[in-house]
Every structure is written in structure tokens, then in C-alpha cells.
């Protein structure tokens, strides 16, 4: 069961397809999943089936990719998804305090979304910001060398 995509999105699909050699059609799986994720904020299994139809490949393989890679959300998230690194260098430089501060400030736990749908708080693994730890991503933007004051400024500055 697949869901049709808006034509603007399909045009993006076409543009992505043109970037790859034609014999590499299954390589389109990740770029198209990203495309839908960026447009909608999440990708459902039905979307994965639609993508499979566009590419011309078995749907199960797109569903597998959707569920295996950690960057794809299968349900709608908050407007701003905050992803705090919890790996070793960030832990050594205070990531636990970052998480605690955000939990207190936003009133939610890790894995939860604020009632107004504005923020989702998550912990993630190494973002390759070890030299500028502790670090987090808000949607796609990196924020590094965090302390509580900086966290407050970042949150306030978000439109």
C-alpha cells in the first residue's frame, strides 16, 4: 500500500536520479528516503513502498533500509529535534549535564516531545565533534562547546 507523493517531491526524486549512473538504481534508496524525511520530517513504511515503486525494486528492501538506519524517523517529530551526543569525548566534557539541563528546561525526558510539538529531545552517538565537545545537533545544525548559558541562548534564538 503506497502513498502518492506531491509532484514537487517527485521532481526532486528525478533530479536525484539524474545524479547517479543509470545502472545504479538501488543506490537511490538512501537519497530518496532523506528527501522524504527532509520534506515531511518523517518517513512512513507506506512512503518506503512508494519509493520502491518509483525506483522499481522490491519494497521490502526499502523498508529494511528505513528501519535499519537511525536517521530516519517513522513518526512525526517535534519541530526541532535536539540530538545530544552521549559518546565518550562528549561524556568526558559534560554531555550528561547538557542532557539534564535540556530535560529540565524543556520539561521532557529523552525520547520525548514537548506538548506544544516544538522540541524533541534525543541522545545520539558520536557526531565527530570530539574536539569541540560537548556537542549536539538541532535538526541539521551542529552546536558545539556547549554550556548551560549557550544552550539557553540557542533555544531562545530558534524561530
Amino acid at each position, binding site marked *: *500500500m503506497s502513498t502518492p507523493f506531491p509532484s514537487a517531491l517527485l521532481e526532486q526524486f528525478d533530479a536525484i536520479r539524474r545524479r547517479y549512473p543509470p545502472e545504479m538504481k538501488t543506490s537511490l534508496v538512501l537519497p530518496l528516503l532523506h528527501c522524504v524525511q527532509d520534506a515531511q520530517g518523517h518517513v512512513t513504511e507506506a512512503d518506503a513502498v512508494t519509493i520502491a515503486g518509483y525506483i522499481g525494486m*522490491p*519494497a*521490502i*528492501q526499502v*523498508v*529494511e533500509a528505513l*528501519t*535499519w538506519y*537511525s536517521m530516519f524517523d517513522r513518526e512525526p517529530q517535534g519541530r526541532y529535534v535536539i540530538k545530544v551526543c552521549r559518546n565518550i569525548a562528549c561524556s568526558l566534557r559534560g554531555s550528561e549535564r547538557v542532557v539534564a539541563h535540556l530535560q529540565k528546561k524543556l520539561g521532557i525526558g529523552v525520547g520525548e516531545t514537548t506538548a506544544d510539538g516544538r522540541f524533541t529531545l534525543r541522545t545520539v552517538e558520536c557526531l565527530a565533534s570530539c574536539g569541540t565537545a560537548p556537542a549536539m545537533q538541532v535538526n541539521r545544525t551542529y552546536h558545539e562547546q556547549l554550556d548551560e548559558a549557550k544552550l539557553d541562548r540557542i533555544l531562545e534564538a530558534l524561530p
Partner: protein
Amino acid sequence: MSTSTIKVTIDQHEIEARPGETVLQVARRHGIDIPHFCYHDKLSISGNCRICLVKVNGLPKLQPACNLGCAPNMVIETAVEQVQQARENVLQFLLVNHPVDCGICDKAGECRLQDYQHLYGPKQSIARDPKHHKRKLYDLGPRITLDNERCILCSRCVRFTREISGSNALGIVERGNHSYVEAEVPGRFDDPYSDNVTEICPTGALLSKDFLYKCRVWFLQPVRSVCTGCARGCSIKVWRRSAVRQQHMPGTDSAHVAYRTTVFENAEINGPWLCNKGYDQHKWMARERLLEPLVRGRAGTVAEALAEAKRLLESARNPAVLVSSHASNEELDVLQSLLGGVAVYVHRDWLPVEGEVVEDHLLIRADKNPNRAGVVARFGEREFDATAGHDVVLAWGEFAGAPPGAAHWIHLSLFGTPAEVPATVVIPVSNTWERRGTFTNFEGKLNAFEQVFERPAGVQHAADVLRSLAS
């Protein structure tokens, strides 16, 4: 006469490998057991279970035998401590989360994991953490139940649907320890070969819903037979209670029950595969059937039926015989020896029914009868001619209706109830499971079946009936 064979040594046995063979393949060919879960000789190499690890002299790490090509003078050890420990480790790892369901799991007694645990496993699990829970008794589809806890993620089922059946119906979703087997459309494992996954699954994760909880496999014995579903004539195993395991309880007739049908691996005809229609043969062969002869619509004795049939045939002006494509070669030989100049036509007992796969790339043939080739070889290809004015027809097999134009017909009935196909005389005859014999498949290959059950008392062997009618 040597093509270039490759000399390798496994556990001090010098053996010759063929070019391209892996260590696992050459070991199996020589009866050396290297345990393996994910390897299957008809599927691509996955190399994920890691229980086939062996020691190769000169290499520091153990190597998966399933992926290791034989090289000249390779020396392989499987009986050394390092390998034994590695096998035990794999089983320890599997035991961390595998539920020890053996007491309630259908697979017990024919479970590869259970077998390897006995042969190679640790005496006890060293894991202390509670096992992760996953879906149990999950309807993967209408025919298959899936227990994700028992699954060891060998991926044989997934590879089967991608490489053999082509349905692409199964996958493994999520990552790491959270992974689990799932159907592309949850609940709808849509694949005419779905039941093969229960055969190749090395644990009790994938089980037939039809067989679920019916009987312990060690009470059963398989009998080799041939599927009657189409002209491929795949070899099958029909499972009945073994002689020493008959139930002695009043009211049970388990002596005549076929509990399940599975594949009989036959390299000539079907390899290790069987379609779902084949897996359903025991249900098919348990259809309602006539158990006593009928004469002009009323129950009669065998003698009465034979007498009436003989009378009709002797007084016929233009008799004909319509021969079942389910008759065995042996029965056909009897008919051929008795015929004289009677007209003979080949009968297609079954045409494809709505919803069934007609023909495909793998096993299924459009001709839904097992022995048309046997009939044609002896009697030619003519189909019944309604304009030829046959007044009495000896109709042997299964019929949807009376042969057109015949005033009288004598039905040697394989299944079917009298209401469906009223004939002048009906004599029920034995089916494929009630005698031994052979079929010839569409490629001209001969395939043999053994007797599974005794025929019921009122049912005759067609060969005996034909001899009686001819005398």
C-alpha cells in the same frame, strides 16, 4: 581423467576438492560434518551464523568454512580446541536470548539448533540477564506462524524469498539485537512457496500453522510419495504415525491420518523445494470421497457393481475408456494389457482452479495432473470425442460431470461424492497413497511413491477392477 582438482586436508583426511568448492562443500561431500545454520547449498552464502568457523593452518583467525575457497595444500582442522570453543561460544551467544521452548515447540526432534546444542553446545548458559522478548505465535501470513524469539536471524528465509521464490516477501528489519524477520506486508506472507521456509528454518521460529501442535515429530514417520498437484510430480514425504506409535484409544483413527506433508529432496525433479499445494497434499488427500460402490444411485456390494458394469460393457456397441491422468504407470500397464480394441482417451482430471498459480519459473506446471505423460505414452493424446457416439464409457478418475453424449457411464471414482457426478455404476478406487507405483512427469522423468495407508474396505484397486471387468 582429472580436471584440476584441489588437494586439501581436513582433520588429517586428504581429500580432493573441485575447482570453486568451499571447505564446507567439500567436507559435506565427504561426510565430514561442519555445523552450519545460515549456509544452504541452494542459497547465496551469508556467513553470518559463524558456527562453521574452522582452523586453517597458517592463518591466525578462524575462517568461516562456508565462504572459504579450497586452495592447494590447505590444511584444515575442525577437531581442535579452538574450533570446539568457537562452536560452543556461538551456541552460548544464541542461548542468551533464544527461549528454551523445546517442551512446547513443534521443531523439537528435528531442530538444527537443538541438535547442535547436543553435539557442540555448553552444558549451561552463562547469561544472567532476562531474555529479550519479541513476537511469539505471530501470523506471518495465513499459513506460517513466526516466533521472533526463537529466530537466530540466519536469513535463510529471507534469501529464499529473494533468490528462489522471487516473492521478495520477507526481510529483516531494525538493527543489531533488535532485528527481526518481518513480511513486506505484515500478516500477509504472500508466496506460493511460503511453506519452504519452515523446512529451511534451523529453529522453531517459522512453523506451519496447519501442523501446529498436532503431533510430536518423533511419533511420526515419513513415507516417500509424489505430489499429485501438477505434472512436475515433486517428491514429498507424507507423515503418518509410526507403527510403534499408534494410539490405542477408542474413537481415534490416527492410524489413517496424514499429519503433514513436507518436501522429499529429489535432485532430479524438485531439488529441496515444494510448492504450497504440495505442502497441502495431506489435506487434499483427506477430501470427502465415496467409500462404497453405487449402482443406479443406490448403495451396492462390490460384486453387484462389478456385475452391472460388466453387463453394460458387454452389451455396448461403441464402448470407450477415459483414462485418469492420476493413474499410476503400473495401473496403466494393466489397462493396456486388457484393452483389446476399445477406444481410449486421455482425461485431464484437474484444470487450474481460480486463484491458483498456473505456471511459474520454479516448479508449478499448468497441467494439474501428475501422470499425463504416462497415459499419453501408452494411449496417445486423444481427448474424449463426444461426437463419436460412445454409448458406454468407462470413466476412470475425477470428473466434474458426465462424459457428454454417453447413455451410460461406469465411474471408477478417485474422490467425489455421488451427488456431483451421477453415473450408472460408481466404484470407488484407491488413491495414490493406498498403493505403490510410479508417475512420469512432464519431462519424462520417472518418480516413485510408496504406500502410506491401507485402502478402506469398500474401495478397490483400479487394477483389480479392470481385471474383473475384462475377464
